[in-house]
């Protein structure tokens, strides 16, 4: 099912959770809404589900107005952040709930309900837990129950709110792959909310990066990582080294020193030169646009980072540079930084 979100705005008192957001989700896609907390991603998901109503704007399912339908009638499977399993029902009854509350012509006979629930439980590989209660399950198992319960109503849209947020790192990775697999098996359009970029980049067909109630960029995981549209996206996804600079007459300067870097068409004024740590080489200070003193070197696992103090136009700017393997760097020495790939953004943009 295609989901169209058109010009949706939602305010909570004075706080604008969503500011004129438009988005098209293609049928069968797995889309991740990625952003820091407060970026409006969960609000957008809840509006698509019908748990929240926008102040203005439209939501369309396959071209049909969805806002005129309540959450009951939208037939969306929603997986809640903390699963929201019914605590007084066992796993079987949790999954059966959506079938049992049906009325009239849709009502299924008991045998059909049992068959369908058992089918779902084996699909999510927890058929052996049918008699257990939610409090007796591990986080990963609860997650699977929540998913089976949402799938019981045969939704054409599956919405997941931070589905792996409450799990430990190892289980998270395992379930991530499993979810991707499940999505491919089912005729369903999935939307996933997450603040974990790794999750979004690994799982999704397309990533929607959100910040301050707006969509910053929509693209494939490779696009948003390699070609961030805004400084916000560059900062938020992947590691970023921010180098100071200023555009004057189409050229980049640091203080009075010409950097010899491409200003990439950014208008005159203070600028930020953003690069991935692995795209910045350490080199001879005399031959590089940036030079500074090494303050400290830290090692975590395979990576090493050096704090380098660059002299900016208004006092020193400390940047964190990657130290390649096999290179030693002593605190106190002068070092030069040479960005190989970088993007220039005007300072004012968030």
């Amino acid at each position, binding site marked *: 099912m295609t989901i169209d979100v058109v010009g949706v705005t939602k305010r909570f008192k004075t706080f604008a959770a969503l500011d004129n957001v438009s988005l098209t989700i293609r049928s069968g896609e797995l889309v991740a809404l990625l952003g820091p907390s407060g970026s409006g991603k969960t609000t957008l998901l809840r509006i698509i*589900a*019908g*748990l929240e109503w926008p102040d203005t704007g439209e939501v369309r399912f396959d071209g049909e107005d969805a806002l005129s339908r*309540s*959450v*009951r009638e939208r*037939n*969306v*499977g*929603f997986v*809640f*952040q*903390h699963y*929201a*399993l*019914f*605590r*007084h029902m066992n796993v079987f009854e949790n999954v059966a*709930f*959506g079938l049992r*509350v*049906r*009325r009239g012509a849709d009502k299924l006979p008991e045998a059909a309900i049992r068959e369908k629930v058992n089918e779902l439980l084996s699909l999510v590989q927890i058929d052996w837990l049918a008699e257990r*209660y*939610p*409090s007796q399950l591990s986080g990963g198992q609860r997650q699977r129950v929540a998913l089976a*319960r*949402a799938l*019981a*109503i045969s939704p054409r849209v599956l919405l997941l709110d931070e589905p792996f947020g409450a799990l430990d790192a190892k289980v998270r990775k395992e379930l991530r792959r499993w979810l991707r697999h499940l999505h491919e098996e089912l005729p369903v359009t999935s939307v996933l909310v997450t603040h974990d970029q790794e999750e979004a980049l690994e799982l999704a067909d397309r990533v929607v990066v959100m910040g301050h109630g707006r969509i910053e960029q929509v693209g494939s995981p490779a696009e948003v990582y390699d070609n961030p549209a805004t400084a916000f996206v560059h900062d938020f996804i992947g590691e970023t080294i921010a180098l100071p600079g200023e555009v004057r007459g189409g050229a980049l300067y640091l203080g009075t020193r010409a950097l010899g870097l491409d200003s990439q068409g950014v208008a005159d004024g203070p600028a930020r030169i953003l690069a991935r740590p692995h795209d910045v080489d350490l080199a001879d200070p005399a031959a590089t646009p940036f030079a500074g003193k090494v303050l400290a070197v830290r090692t975590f696992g395979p990576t090493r980072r050096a704090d380098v103090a660059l002299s900016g136009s208004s006092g020193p700017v400390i940047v964190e540079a990657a130290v390649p393997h096999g290179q030693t760097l002593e605190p106190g020495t002068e070092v030069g930084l040479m960005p190989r790939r970088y993007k220039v953004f005007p300072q004012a943009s968030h």
Partner: protein
Amino acid sequence: MSALDHVAASEGMPSALAQSRAYTGHGGRPVRTEPRWVRITLTAIALAFLFLFIGLPLVTVFYEAFRRGWAAYVAALVEPDALASIRLTLIVAAISVTANLLFGLVAAWSIAKFEFPGKSLLITLIDLPFSVSPVVAGLVYVLLFGAQGLFAAELAAWDIKIIFALPGIVLATIFVTFPFVARELIPLMQEQGTSEEEAAISLGASGLSTFFRVTLPNVKWALLYGVLLCNARAMGEFGAVSVVSGHVRGLTNTMPLHIEILYNEYQFVASFAVASLLALLALVTLIAKTILEHRLAEGDR
């Protein structure tokens, strides 16, 4: 002086604990174990207090009730005025517990699941009966509905009798037992939040179906617990009921009022016989309460 030193050295720990820590150097006992004589003395004092102020009165009630034997006991209970008071108490309790059950559910539900202006005021108001003397509560109803009261003319015109009649007793009882159910449910419902209800609705359940299949089962033990306490208080309430009842024998006397009248007339056996029923109710309540607390502690089931 040395005790003060201990407190200072142990940074405000309970002095008994600090004391025991001081002992470890000598005895090699675990730090948190008191000496044997301290344990025995403390336990003995606690038990003696319990027996003196709770156990003994309870025993006395039954002892006095059966002082003249089983026949006198039964005779005191089947006496028409006593029966009338028991019946009235049961009716009053049934009405007020039902009313407060409904009110408590509605109040807790709206407070826990929705945001609305005046919410904190409502939470404060729910606690009011706990902080107001029951006698004051009774007087308020007399001032409102009494012969000289605010609504006296209207009530007279419609020939409705509230004070010195069943409605007044029920109103006063509802007032004093008002907080029990709501107080029990509000924190639990707030803790549970709304996500299970949202899940139910997203799965296609109607509002009513969500309430009966999800909300109510989630709070059933707390609800029962509140009802139990509410009932115990409703049957035992004296002050507020005393003000509005008018003490008409066989008509507006509840059990506590009946007991007082009998006692003032030196009919000790009869008085304690009726009192033994209330004591019995207390014991049953206590047992049921313990079972329910166990259920509540189990929580998620």
